[in-house]
C-alpha cells in the first residue's frame, strides 16, 4: 500500500465521512497520524493506553511531591516548613491525586494496552468513547489542582470530604466537587468501555474461563466502578447542595446526619479500594506464572476469589466508621464481613505461592516486583485484619497505623504491580528490552526505602500518633525522622524508573515477539513492538492461550 493510500485510510473514516464502499479489511494498515493531533484525536487503544500511562506517571510525581512536603514537615516535631492549613491540603490532595490521578489511570492505561491484545480484539469496543475517557482526565485535574492557587486554598478536610468540616471550606469547594464529578464521568465511561470490550470483543474460542486473569480482574473492577462511582457522585452532590442550596442532608439541625455522608461515601469508598487492587492481582497473576515457568495454580479459584472479594466489598463499608457510635449489631456485622475478605484474599496469596512452588524460577525485574508485591501486600493485608477487629480499631482509628496499613497495600501493592506490569510489557510496547541491571537497582532501592518509609508508621501509630496533623509529640520524633528519610529515598529513586523507561523507549536490545521464555498468552504472539493495529481478523487461539 502506497503512502498516499495509507493516508487515505485515515480520512475515509474521519467523523462526518461515510464511505461504506471502502472495505474495512484494508483501512487499518496505515500507521499513526503525525503531530499533536494524533494524540488528541486518536482512537487507537495502544495510543490511548500510552496517554493514560504517561499521564499517570506525571501525576505520580505531582502527588509524590505533595507527599514529600508532608514528610518534610513531619521530619521534626513542631511547625517548620508549611502552615497547618497547607499541610492539610497536601494530605488531601496527595490522596486525591494518587487515587484518581495515578493508580486508576495507570490501570486503565494497562487495560487499554493489554485487554484487546489478550482477548484477540482489534481495539476497544467503543474507540471514540475511549478517547473521551482519557481526554477528560487532564481537564479534570486542571480544575482540581487549580484550587491550590485559589484564595481559599485546596481542599484540606481529607480526601474523604467528611462534613461538617468539608462544608466549612472556602470558594474552592465547588471546584473540588466538580473535579470529582468530572473524573467520575471519565471512570464510568472507561469502565463501560472495558466491560463492553470484554463481553463483546473476545476472539472466537476465548471463553470466559480461558481469559487471562488480568482480563478477569479488570472485568470485575469495571463492574465495581460502574456500581460505585455514581454513588460517590451522589454523595458529593449532596455536599454541594448542603453548601450552596440550603439542603440539610448532613446537618442534624435539619433532621439529617453527618454520619450519613460517611455511610454513602464508604459504600463507594470500600469497593474503591478493591478497584485499586484487583487489577494488581491480575497483573501479578500474569507475571508469576511466566517467571516460574508454570501455569497459574488454581485459575478457577482465582476467578471465584476475585468475584467474592468484589461481592464482599459492598457489605463491609462501615468498618471505616467503627468510632461513629454505630449500634452493636452494626459493628459486629461489619467486623465479621470484613474478616471474611481475608478468605478469598488468602486463596490468592496461596495460589501465587503455589504457582512458584517448585517452578523453574528466574528473577527478572518484573518478577522481583511481583514477589515484592506478594510479600508486602500480605503485610498490608494482615494489618488490615487487625483493623477489622472493632475493639482494636477503636484504638487504631485515625492513627499512623492506618496510614501504614493502606500505604502497604497501595505502594508496595498497587504501585509495585504497576511497576511490575511496566517492566513486564515494556518490551512488547517499545520493541526494546529495558536495562535489566538498572531495573534491579530500581527494585532494590525502592524496596529498602519503601519499608524504611512505611514500617515505622506502624510503631508510631500503635503508640498513638494521629494522622493528618502537622505536629506531633516528642516521643514520635525518631521514627518520623526515619520515615521521612525513607520517603525522600523512595521518591527520588523513582527518577531512576523514569530514566529506565525513557531509555527503553529510545532504544536498547531488540525484544523478540515472545520476550520472556515462559510467557503465555495472545499478546506474546504479535511482534515487538506490537503493530499499531493487532488482530484485525480474529486469531487462532488454540495454541496460545494462557490455559
Amino acid at each position: 500500500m502506497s503512502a498516499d493510500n495509507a493516508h487515505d485510510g485515515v480520512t475515509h473514516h474521519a467523523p462526518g465521512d461515510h464511505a461504506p464502499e471502502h472495505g474495512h479489511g484494508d483501512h487499518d494498515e496505515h500507521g499513526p497520524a503525525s503531530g499533536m493531533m494524533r494524540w488528541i484525536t486518536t482512537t487507537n487503544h495502544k495510543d490511548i493506553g500510552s496517554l493514560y500511562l504517561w499521564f499517570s506517571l506525571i501525576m505520580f510525581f505531582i502527588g509524590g511531591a505533595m507527599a514529600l512536603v508532608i514528610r518534610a514537615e513531619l521530619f521534626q516535631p513542631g511547625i517548620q516548613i508549611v502552615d497547618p492549613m497547607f499541610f492539610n491540603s497536601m494530605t488531601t490532595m496527595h490522596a486525591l491525586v494518587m487515587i484518581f490521578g495515578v493508580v486508576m489511570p495507570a490501570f486503565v492505561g494497562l487495560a487499554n494496552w493489554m485487554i484487546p491484545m489478550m482477548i484477540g480484539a482489534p481495539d476497544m469496543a467503543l474507540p471514540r468513547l475511549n478517547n473521551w475517557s482519557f481526554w477528560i482526565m487532564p481537564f479534570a485535574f486542571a480544575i482540581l489542582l487549580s484550587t491550590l492557587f485559589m484564595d481559599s486554598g485546596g481542599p484540606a478536610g481529607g480526601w474523604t470530604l467528611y462534613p461538617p468540616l468539608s462544608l466549612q471550606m472556602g470558594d474552592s469547594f465547588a471546584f473540588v466537587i466538580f473535579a470529582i464529578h468530572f473524573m467520575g464521568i471519565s471512570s464510568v465511561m472507561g469502565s463501560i468501555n472495558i466491560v463492553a470490550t470484554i463481553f463483546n470483543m473476545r476472539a472466537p474460542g476465548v471463553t470466559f474461563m480461558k481469559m487471562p486473569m488480568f482480563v478477569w480482574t479488570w472485568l470485575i473492577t469495571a463492574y465495581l466502578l460502574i456500581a460505585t462511582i455514581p454513588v460517590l457522585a451522589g454523595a458529593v452532590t449532596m455536599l454541594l447542595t448542603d453548601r450552596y442550596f440550603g439542603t440539610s442532608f448532613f446537618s442534624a439541625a435539619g433532621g439529617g446526619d453527618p454520619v450519613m455522608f460517611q455511610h454513602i461515601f464508604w459504600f463507594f469508598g470500600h469497593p474503591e479500594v478493591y478497584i485499586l487492587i484487583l487489577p494488581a492481582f491480575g497483573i501479578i497473576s500474569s507475571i508469576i506464572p511466566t517467571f516460574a515457568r508454570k501455569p497459574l495454580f488454581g485459575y478457577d479459584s482465582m476467578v471465584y476469589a476475585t468475584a467474592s472479594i468484589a461481592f464482599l466489598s459492598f457489605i463491609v463499608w462501615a468498618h471505616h466508621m467503627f468510632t461513629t457510635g454505630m449500634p452493636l449489631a452494626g459493628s459486629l456485622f461489619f467486623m465479621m464481613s470484613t474478616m471474611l475478605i481475608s478468605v478469598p484474599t488468602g486463596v490468592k496469596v496461596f495460589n501465587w505461592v503455589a504457582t512458584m512452588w517448585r517452578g523453574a524460577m528466574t528473577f527478572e525485574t518484573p518478577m522481583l516486583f511481583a514477589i515484592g508485591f506478594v510479600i508486602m501486600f500480605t503485610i498490608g493485608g494482615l494489618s488490615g485484619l487487625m483493623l477489622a477487629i472493632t475493639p482494636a480499631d477503636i484504638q487504631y482509628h485515625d492513627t499512623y497505623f492506618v496510614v501504614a496499613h493502606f500505604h502497604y497495600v497501595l505502594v508496595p501493592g498497587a504501585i509495585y504491580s504497576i511497576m511490575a506490569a511496566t517492566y513486564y510489557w515494556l518490551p512488547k510496547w517499545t520493541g526494546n528490552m529495558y536495562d535489566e541491571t538498572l531495573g534491579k537497582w530500581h527494585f532494590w532501592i525502592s524496596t529498602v526505602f519503601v519499608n524504611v518509609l512505611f514500617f515505622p508508621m506502624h510503631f508510631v501509630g500503635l503508640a498513638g500518633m494521629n494522622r493528618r496533623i502537622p505536629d506531633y509529640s516528642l516521643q514520635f520524633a525518631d521514627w518520623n525522622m526515619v520515615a521521612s528519610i525513607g520517603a525522600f529515598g523512595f521518591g527520588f529513586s523513582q527518577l531512576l524508573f523514569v530514566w529506565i523507561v525513557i531509555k527503553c523507549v529510545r532504544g536498547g536490545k531488540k525484544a523478540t515477539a515472545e520476550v520472556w521464555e515462559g510467557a503465555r498468552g495472545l499478546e506474546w504472539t504479535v511482534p515487538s513492538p506490537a503493530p499499531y493495529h493487532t488482530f484485525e481478523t480474529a486469531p487462532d487461539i488454540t495454541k496460545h492461550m494462557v490455559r
Partner: protein
Amino acid sequence: MSSPSADAYYVPHAARWPIVGSIGLFVFFWGFANWLNDRPLGKETFFLGVIVLVVMMFGWFGTVIRESESGTYNGQVDTSFRMCMMWFIFSEVMFFAAFFGALFYARVFSGPWLGGDGGGGAGVTNEVLYQGFNYVWPSNGPDRIGGEFMQMGWFGLPLINTLLLLTSGLTCTFAHHAIRHGERKKMVKWLAATCALGFIFVGLQAYEYYHAYHGLNLKMSSGIYGSTFFMLTGFHGFHVTMGAIMLLVVMFRGMKSHFTANNHFAFEAAAWYWHFVDVVWLGLFVFVYLL
C-alpha cells in the same frame, strides 16, 4: 446485516468530538463553580459550556447516525452500543440509589435517633443537644430549618403524574411494536404521544414545585424532608426531560425515514432509558409520596 464490514469490527479514526466534549465539560464545570461562588462571568461561562456540549452532542451523534445510516456498522458494533447503554443505565440506577439510600437512612435510622429512640449511644444526641425534640416524618429537624411547612400529598398531581408516566411507557411500547413491524409512521405517532405525555409530566412537576414553594412553604431548605423531596424528584424530573428529548430526536429521525424493523438501536436505547425513569418514578411515588 449485509454491509461490507460484516466480517470486521468498525474502528473509527481521528475522533474530533471528544476533545470538544472535554473542553465543553471543563467550561461548564468551571463556570458553574464560579457561578455558585457569585464570581464574575460564572453564569455566562456556564451557559457557554452548555452550548459547547450541545454542539458536541449534535456533532458526535450526527456522525454516528450518518455512519449507521450508511451501513458502516455490523451486528457486533450494534451489540457494543447496546451493552454501553445498558451499563450506563445501571450507573444511573446507582446514582439514584445514593439518594434513596439517604432517604431511607434518614427515615429509618438517624431521624428516630435524633428523637431519642434506639437506646445506647443513640439517645445521647437527643438528650444533650435536642432535648424534647420529638421526631415525626416529615421532619425539618430539631431547628425547624425553613420554618413550618406542609407535606406534599400523593393524591392529586403525583397520582396524575404516575398515570401519565405509566401511560407513556405503554405508548412507547406501542411505538416499539410499530417499528418492529416496519411501520415507521405509526411509530412516529406513538412516539409523539409518548413525548407529549413526558413533557406534560415535566410541566405538572414544575407546577407542583410552584405549589410547594408558594402554597405549602415546602422548599429545598425545608430540612431533610425538603432536601430528599426536591433532590429525588428534581433529578428524576431532569432525567425525564433528557429521556423525552431523546425520544423526540428518535421521533424526528423516524420522520426522516431512519430506522428499519431490524435496525433501530437508537429507538431502543431511548426506550430503555424511558422505562428506567418510569421505574424510578414508581419508587419515588411509593417512598417519597405515599409512605
